[in-house]
């Protein structure tokens, strides 16, 4: 990739949320995008840190936000005209906040038209405070929204937040969430590594992210503080990597599968990673990168090693492990294949994947 886009600043420190006023000293009017769960857990802490600022909180963000819900939120808040949007939450909150940044800058714009080829002039500052250690949305140019029953991946380089604040004291204690978001970051790093737009800059970020997540995710799930700090930073590193390289086939398939069967994003993309590694190994350059990862992780075989890692952390390896019946899965296989083939992430895959290739992987992944 000949263009690298990073946030202007990244803060990394436990409890730094208390220093938020100093970080945003130049901002006058804040629009906080978050969800009701974050308000329940961290609301007082957030409001306390903003007590001398003018702010409005929008907390009705639901997982996998729909275009419709964003348009509704904008209609309710367009007259507020903030100079800064602060996203505090997981990937869905980040995507919602970025979408609101577009709407505040281009009120008439159809979000479906957002693409990376036409620069956007975003006239609000965008601050991202991720509360999960997975999506990398705090540093990425992408948005994933729901449009009807379809997930659409959009993006624009001007949507990379100006500032990312990494405070793992805000991250959840529930091991299921830590696992799913950690696996998401793991897959981001793998896909960034192998994307056909990868460079040594993104490879360096991706490799270190893979290594750190592999060694620390289980401990983070047990709420070891140091491990959680490292996973939180690794998720952002994976985000920097994929935002400046790409995500690819595992994401195209994970988006499609997740939207069809309503499975959490991280679990979905993680499920397809080993099969995608197998498929992509036919590309020599990618194969060499996988062999290097094997050495870094001390594995004899990458796919077997990932399977063992998944067993240790409780990530499903087969679709059947999720309790989805064979009949139901196969009845939807044409639908999931068609959705996956339409996903723009495929462009970054090192090996061109057609309909038959994708269907084959979907079949293998069931675990017959």
């Amino acid at each position, binding site marked *: 990739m000949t*263009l690298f886009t990073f946030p202007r600043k990244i803060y990394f420190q436990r409890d730094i949320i208390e220093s938020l006023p100093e970080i945003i000293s130049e901002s006058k009017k804040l629009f906080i995008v978050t969800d009701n769960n974050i308000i329940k857990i961290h609301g007082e802490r957030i409001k306390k840190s903003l007590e001398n600022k003018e702010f409005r909180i929008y907390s009705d963000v639901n997982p996998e936000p729909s275009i419709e819900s964003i348009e509704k939120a904008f209609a309710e808040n367009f007259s507020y005209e903030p100079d800064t949007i602060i996203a505090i939450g997981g990937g869905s909150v980040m995507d919602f906040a970025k979408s609101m940044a577009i709407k505040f800058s281009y009120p008439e714009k159809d979000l479906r038209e957002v693409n990376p080829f036409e620069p956007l002039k975003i006239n609000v500052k965008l601050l991202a405070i991720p509360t999960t250690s997975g999506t990398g949305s705090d540093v990425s140019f992408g948005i994933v929204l729901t449009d009807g029953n379809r997930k659409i991946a959009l993006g624009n380089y001007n949507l990379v937040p100006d500032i990312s604040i990494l405070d793992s004291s805000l991250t959840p204690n529930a091991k299921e969430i830590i696992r799913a978001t950690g696996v998401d970051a793991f897959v981001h790093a793998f896909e960034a590594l192998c994307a056909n737009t990868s460079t040594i800059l993104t490879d360096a970020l991706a490799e270190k992210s893979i290594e750190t997540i592999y060694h620390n995710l289980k401990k983070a799930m047990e709420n070891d503080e140091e491990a959680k700090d490292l996973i939180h930073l690794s998720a952002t590193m994976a985000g920097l990597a994929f935002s400046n390289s790409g995500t690819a086939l595992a994401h195209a398939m994970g988006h499609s599968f997740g939207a069809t069967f309503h499975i959490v994003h991280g679990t979905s993309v993680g499920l397809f990673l080993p099969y995608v590694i197998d498929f992509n190994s036919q590309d020599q350059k990618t194969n060499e990168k996988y062999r290097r990862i094997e050495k870094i992780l001390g594995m004899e075989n990458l796919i077997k090693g990932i399977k063992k890692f998944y067993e240790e952390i409780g990530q499903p390896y087969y679709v059947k492990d999720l309790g989805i019946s064979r009949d139901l899965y196969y009845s939807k296989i044409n639908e999931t294949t068609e959705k996956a083939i339409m996903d723009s992430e495929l462009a*970054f895959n090192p090996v*061109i994947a057609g309909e038959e290739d994708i269907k084959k992987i979907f079949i293998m992944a069931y675990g017959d």
Partner: protein
Amino acid sequence: MEEKLLFPSEEWVIEYCKRLKESPDYNKAGKGWKDPILFKMIDIENLKEKPEFDSFILYLKDGICENCEVVKDTSKSAPFKLTATYGNWKKIIDGKINPTQAMLTGQMKVEGNMALLLRYASAAIAMVKVAQSIPTKYLE
């Protein structure tokens, strides 16, 4: 050894269309695409040797190149248009820039339904691989 074809020339465009038709990668990735694409070179007045034309159209349908046409009538258009300097087209064909990179960094301008174009970015990669397979010589 295969004779090198000049880019751009009618022979090169015809060969490109033929090879796209025969490319399993393009057949896969281009399935579902139904629109012609116009390829345009700008800045050709700065070249020492002037090409016979600055644009050509590929008539693409479902992963097959059905027909091609060199464009001498400037009013001719297509639903999708890709424009770059001659130098950048050379870099894309030679593999020095990835076409997705070229589009993202403005080194190749795109006109048309952006959402659709993005969905078929892997077809663009396949098309470039096919272009790279043609023994090509360039204008100075």
